[in-house]
């Protein structure tokens, strides 16, 4: 029988250990858990009323950017919730682009003509790459809306068309929430679909389901056997994002974006405090190890 297990599920002594090689990627929980929609598969249970993790202030962002620079950070990812809900979203992206390449993970619903043009201006005005990733979980409303909410397909695809109109080519991020999306043809079909939305240089990224957060109610959580307790070979360790990235919120630095709600995944307030080996004792670690999940683009 499968059941939802709260994190973590292994003791530190039994779990596999991952060293820390250096801070390549800094994830920033810009909007906290606030989102304009409440996807049924959301692994960190974000939504319009979810304010348990607060938005990040400009002061906190500045502190993190300066510390990350000293640590030799390579790139930044803004996530949420919906990062574009942050009242200073564009100023935040502009500031971050001065430090390094920046990725924005968005549901695209707030990208109107004006927002698309502002993103294009930021793209053109920076020597570093600005990459927008738009989450879309189907090629039709019938496939997408049951997961992301009624009317979201129309709103998301409209946002993508606005980006296409200004010559930006977002990465469409697809969660494999249905069997059809796990087929090998799904990727090429999605690329064709992206072209039909006006994207001349389409890119797609498929992500496996994470059986935590709200997804545990849509289907089920991880089972008791979904654990990583063996010592991992070096070639597997090299693929794990937690060897070179951290997630920062307003209050904490955590192991990774999946573990936002795991209190014992908090490694400190500063990045420097977080630069140490971690143990894969959480159920979600199973997906990264077994399915090769990387949240990076």
């Amino acid at each position, binding site marked *: 029988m499968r059941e939802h297990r709260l994190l973590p599920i292994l003791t530190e002594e039994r779990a596999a250990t991952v060293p820390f090689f*250096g801070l390549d990627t800094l994830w920033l929980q810009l909007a906290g858990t606030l989102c304009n929609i409440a996807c049924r598969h959301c692994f960190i249970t974000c939504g319009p009323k979810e304010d348990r993790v607060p938005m990040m202030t400009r002061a906190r962002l500045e502190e993190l950017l300066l510390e990350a620079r000293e640590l*030799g*950070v390579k790139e930044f990812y803004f996530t949420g919730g919906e990062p574009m809900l942050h009242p200073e979203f564009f100023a935040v992206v502009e500031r971050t682009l001065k*430090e390094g390449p920046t990725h924005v993970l968005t549901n695209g619903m707030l990208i109107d003509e004006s927002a698309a043009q502002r993103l294009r201006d930021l793209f053109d005005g920076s020597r570093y*790459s600005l990459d927008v990733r738009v989450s879309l979980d189907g090629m039709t409303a019938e496939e997408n809306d049951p997961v992301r909410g009624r009317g979201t397909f129309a709103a998301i695809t409209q946002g993508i068309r606005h980006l296409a109109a200004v010559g930006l080519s977002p990465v469409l991020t697809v969660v494999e929430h249905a069997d059809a999306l796990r087929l090998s043809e799904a990727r090429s079909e999605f690329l064709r679909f992206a072209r039909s939305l006006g994207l001349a*240089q389409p890119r797609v990224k498929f992500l496996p389901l994470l059986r935590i957060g709200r997804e545990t109610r849509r289907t089920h959580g991880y089972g008791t056997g979904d654990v990583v307790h063996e010592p991992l070979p070096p070639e597997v360790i090299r693929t794990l994002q937690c060897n070179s990235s951290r997630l920062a919120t307003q209050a904490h630095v955590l192991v990774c974006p999946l573990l936002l709600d795991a209190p014992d995944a908090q490694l400190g307030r500063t990045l420097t405090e977080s630069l140490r080996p971690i143990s894969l004792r959480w159920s979600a670690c199973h997906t990264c190890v077994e399915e090769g999940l990387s949240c990076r683009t």
Partner: protein
Amino acid sequence: MSHLSRVAVFGGVYNNTGALSAVLDDAQAQGATEVYCLGDLGGFGPLPDRVFPILLDRGVTVMQGNYDHSIGHQLADCACGYSDPRDNHYARLSYAYTQAKTSQRWLPYLRALPPFLRREWGGYRVHMAHGSPRQVNEFLWESTSSDAFLRRLLRAHDADVLLVTHTGIPWVRRLPAEQGGGLVVNVGAIGRPANDGRTGIWYALLDIPSKPAQAAALLSAGSAIAVTLRCVDYDHERLCAEMRAESLPEEFVETVATGYWTTCLEILPAKERLRGKF
């Protein structure tokens, strides 16, 4: 010129002997006294065995790329670092061709190539790597390599100058002097165009001050060493004909003929991809 020494550095030959000869001729004409190749001799183009004698005859110092390691050890794939199925499809075709057409007698040569090169030029510590100093198949793109990250790589490898290839698109970064300075150059690849709509290919010339003590005392490497990225034309139409004669993918031929990439597109960051056609 008398106070400088001039060094030519290129990468990614990809079996393109026409480009290789053109670059070596150009470097000689420009007065380069040393020539370095940062690896990936095979892949993409035709008839790999033609590359080795040229490199040996003309005294090029060569290091090992991921392709050379894989072919030399007869591994199952090129370890290029692609993640997209379409990119991997073409990578497999390319690798299978080069593997089948590389004579056994060259495998020990490929295996023996050094994985990196260290030099001291004009008092500056120079580290040459294929992808990055920490990973042979890491892509260092201009738009996705922050100053902070590049400075970290330089410090971690005790270097003032870092020279890399692997991405196929050249760039130069001079790190701010107030942050310790430093110079990073991706020399591009000579085996195929740089997705810029030009059929010519790119390599780098470095002019190094010959009075190290004075130069090092006054200037960081980022300021003291001049870098020129040179675009060299060669008989690309002949290459197209040879590729077709060898039944290599028409997509590869199109890249040679137009200067735009038709494969390896998924690895391109948004900025670099937008400069291309596909």
